């Protein structure tokens, strides 16, 4: 006891500079509140918005529930979960290392274009398992490859990856469109789109449902990534790099290698999201098509605090909201874009809670310090140049 008291006195100077450490249970509870509160507040605000628009919010949310879960809607929700989960995992890996990969659109669409381009010719002619393996690897590697330039620039020259991944994404989206309109164009139609993968060659369904095995692949990936982050040396290296780059350098972690590997894994998983989505749901790709999964999943990745297990309930929530919301919006005679309003409201309330948390010095943030610094760096430069 006396020893402990002494330790506290020793610490008092630092405590002056840093808010007091709350009890573990209190910290855990705060985390839960901060994760769930923005979602609930967004639903409430969305309801008020519906009222203003002259719709019945209760009826709207009931319709979401019916469309997303009842009446077989749960099957559509599960199908949608597969690409969302895989993209979320890809983001979690880099975010853990304090790196932004905002090039998910380019990585996803390149993978999707390749699968939809080669799938119709490979699948009917090759043994199915081999064809699947080739397509999975192809899309995964395409996604990974598209991160290489930002990764090398970041690892060797500390170039801000927010800018490079976004630029690469624009190029990737463009290349995917060129592929779809050019070599992969379906010669039998006038619309710019690829040929369609034969229905019997799509990913098999889980016994007796319309849900393909994509969601099982995604859930398996959740477990693999969780294991990787919590049990392997690579996961710890990611955590150290994400927590403090100077510490990572000091303890002898090969920064370049870890940055490169984090990017490759991220791109690979996002590429896998494309295969699962094309082989499970869409069967073809149309030019200028972009489901924009990454943008919608990012807020949830931060609400889940970069935890691959916690992301699952959030993705379930969004999948239900999305599938049911389509139906509900139609019933309420609203554009389906109303769902984007709800996602935007979640982001808005995250910002508000983040601001309040900082004001009250709760010492918790949705973003890790490294990610926040990377976001700020270009702004800081601009300011000093003025």
């Amino acid at each position, binding site marked *: 006891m*006396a*020893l*402990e008291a*002494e*330790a*506290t*006195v*020793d*610490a*008092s*100077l*630092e*405590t*002056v500079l840093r*808010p*007091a*450490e709350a009890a573990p249970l209190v910290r855990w509870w705060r985390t839960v509140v901060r994760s769930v509160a923005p979602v609930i507040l967004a639903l409430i605000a969305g309801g008020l918005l519906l009222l203003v628009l002259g719709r019945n919010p209760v009826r709207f949310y009931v319709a979401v529930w019916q469309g997303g879960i009842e009446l077989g809607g749960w099957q559509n929700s599960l199908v949608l979960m597969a690409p969302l989960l895989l993209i979320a995992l890809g983001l979690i890996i880099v975010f853990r290392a304090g790196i932004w990969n905002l090039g998910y659109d380019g990585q996803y669409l390149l993978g999707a274009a390749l699968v939809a381009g080669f799938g119709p010719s490979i699948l009917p002619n090759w043994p199915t398992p081999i064809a699947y393996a080739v397509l999975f690897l192809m899309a995964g590697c395409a996604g990974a490859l598209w991160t290489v330039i930002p990764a090398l620039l970041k690892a060797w020259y500390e170039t801000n990856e927010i800018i490079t991944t976004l630029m690469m994404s624009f190029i990737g989206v463009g290349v995917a469109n060129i592929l779809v309109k050019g070599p992969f164009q379906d010669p039998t139609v006038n619309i710019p789109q690829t040929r369609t993968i034969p229905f019997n060659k799509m990913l098999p369904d889980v016994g007796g449902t319309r849900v393909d095995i994509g969601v099982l692949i995604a859930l398996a990936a959740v477990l693999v990534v969780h294991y990787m982050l919590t*049990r*392997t*040396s*690579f996961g*710890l*290296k990611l*955590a*150290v790099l994400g*927590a*403090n780059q*100077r*510490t990572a*350098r*000091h*303890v*002898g*972690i*090969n920064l370049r290698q870890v940055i490169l590997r984090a990017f490759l894994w991220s791109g690979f998983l996002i590429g896998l999201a494309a295969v699962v989505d094309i082989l499970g749901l869409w069967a073809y790709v149309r030019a200028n098509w972009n489901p924009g999964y990454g943008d919608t999943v990012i807020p949830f990745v931060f609400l889940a605090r970069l935890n691959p297990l916690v992301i699952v309930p959030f993705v379930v929530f969004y999948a239900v909201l999305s599938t049911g919301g389509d139906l509900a919006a139609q019933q309420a005679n609203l554009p389906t874009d109303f769902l984007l309003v709800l996602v935007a409201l979640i982001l808005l309330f995250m910002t508000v809670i983040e601001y309040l948390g900082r004001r009250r010095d709760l010492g918790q943030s949705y973003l890790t310090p490294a990610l926040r610094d990377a976001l700020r760096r270009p702004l800081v430069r601009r300011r000093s140049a003025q």
Partner: protein
Amino acid sequence: MTPKESPSRAPAIELISITKRFPGVLANDRVSLTVQHGEVLCLLGENGAGKSTLISILSGMLRPDNGSIRVDGAEVSIRSPRDALRLGVGTVYQHSTLIPALSVLENLLLGARSGLMLDRDGARKRLAEMAGMLGIEVDPEARTGDLALGRQQQVEIISALWRGSRVLVLDEPTSMLTPQGVEELQKVLRRLKEQGTAIVFITHKLHEALAIGDRVTILRRGRLAGALSPEQLGTWSVEDLRAAIVRLMFGEDTAGVAGAAELSADLAKVEQEHSGLSTAALDGTTFLELKSVSAKGEGTEPGIEAVSLQVRAGEILGVAGIDGNGQRALAEAIAGQRRVTAGTVELFGVAVNRMSVSARQRLGLRYMTDDRLGEGIVRNLGVALNMFLKRIGEPPFWKWGRIDRRRINAEASAMVKAFDIRTPGLDTRAGTLSGGNTQKLLLARELSFDPKVVVFHKPTYGLDLKTTEHVRAVIRDLVHKGAAAMVISTDLDELIELCGRIAVLSRGRLVGVVDNGPNAVDQIGSLMIGTSKELEVA
């Protein structure tokens, strides 16, 4: 009735029962202080005793929860640093607040009453007047960044007194100074005292308090632990004063007394071992050698140029120098964290320039960083994991890339015991440990698993007396077992206590190596100052 015209009998400053609470800590608990005009009050205490909080309250950076402040007998409330200056309380902070790119005069004008136009001529006159009063010379047009740190501090003192302050607060003013700089500071303070200025001098160094203070007040755990009056300081012997102060700093409870006894036992041991140390070092083989190594600086801190030195087995080589003279570049060049642009770093006779940080670690090189929180640990990871950060992926703690938690925890709890780390548990987040325990954690990490060459960078900076002695004992023990150690420190007393030879680093160059002996302090001091004076003339 303005206070300037009537040198009133009332004390310059009275703090009455000041209490300041932070979440979980009582930083100041009913502290009362009085400072008279023309007197130096030394405020002594360990880290975390509440000195900085008290000073922040006095200078308007913090507001007390309870208690009152009187200036010249009148009750006042100090809500901001501006209020403090208006009331005649000037503060010199531990770290420079001058703008390096501006001239001395411009820096002083920043603190002046802001009119529409800058009154340069008036300011020049005032500066000459004040420099004359303090007995120093300052070139008003010199860029402050080019001045030596001691000179910069004099400018800070002038700045604090610029608007006629009659109370001067100095927060750990000697931490950045050479021995000669400390002497000059003492002269300046003596002259200020003669002018009737009241001075509050904060320090954690005992001998400074005794040399400079008219009265010494000791803070402990946020409370006033005791005070020594001018009479006591004048009549007691140095040993008695020391004993009294140590008792007041550590307290009379069992833990404190045990600590003090330990401390004096340690000190006795040092003196015994000291003579043997330097001779033992001579027959050791060279473990670490730098052959005219250069490395670039980072930001405002300089790099190193053509540094050559040797560290032998069984030896502690000290590297003295004022902060920011290339210490970090030197340490990082050895550790492999910074690219060497010229020359070679050799470990056991093998050039390691191209080896990575971890490859050098595997050879037995360890670097204990001075930036414990910013570089040493990951705050959000547990104590056990932090102790194994330098062995990530290595068997037997990782098998096939998979962490063996049980093994790590077993080893970690042995390390916690061996290095006396006080932590609630192995999974406790390292960021919640106190400064002393954080340092012990780093010691445990660097000194376990057979270290052969260890570079310590400011190993006891900011630690309390007991932990300081503990760390030094560990370093001594290490070299007794045959390892080689390099201690980079800005605390000359520490180097004198520990090292056989002391190299002096100045502006990134090694300006000399001094054998530890009776004249070492003077030699080192003149080596430090020699180069900086040359540069000032040029």
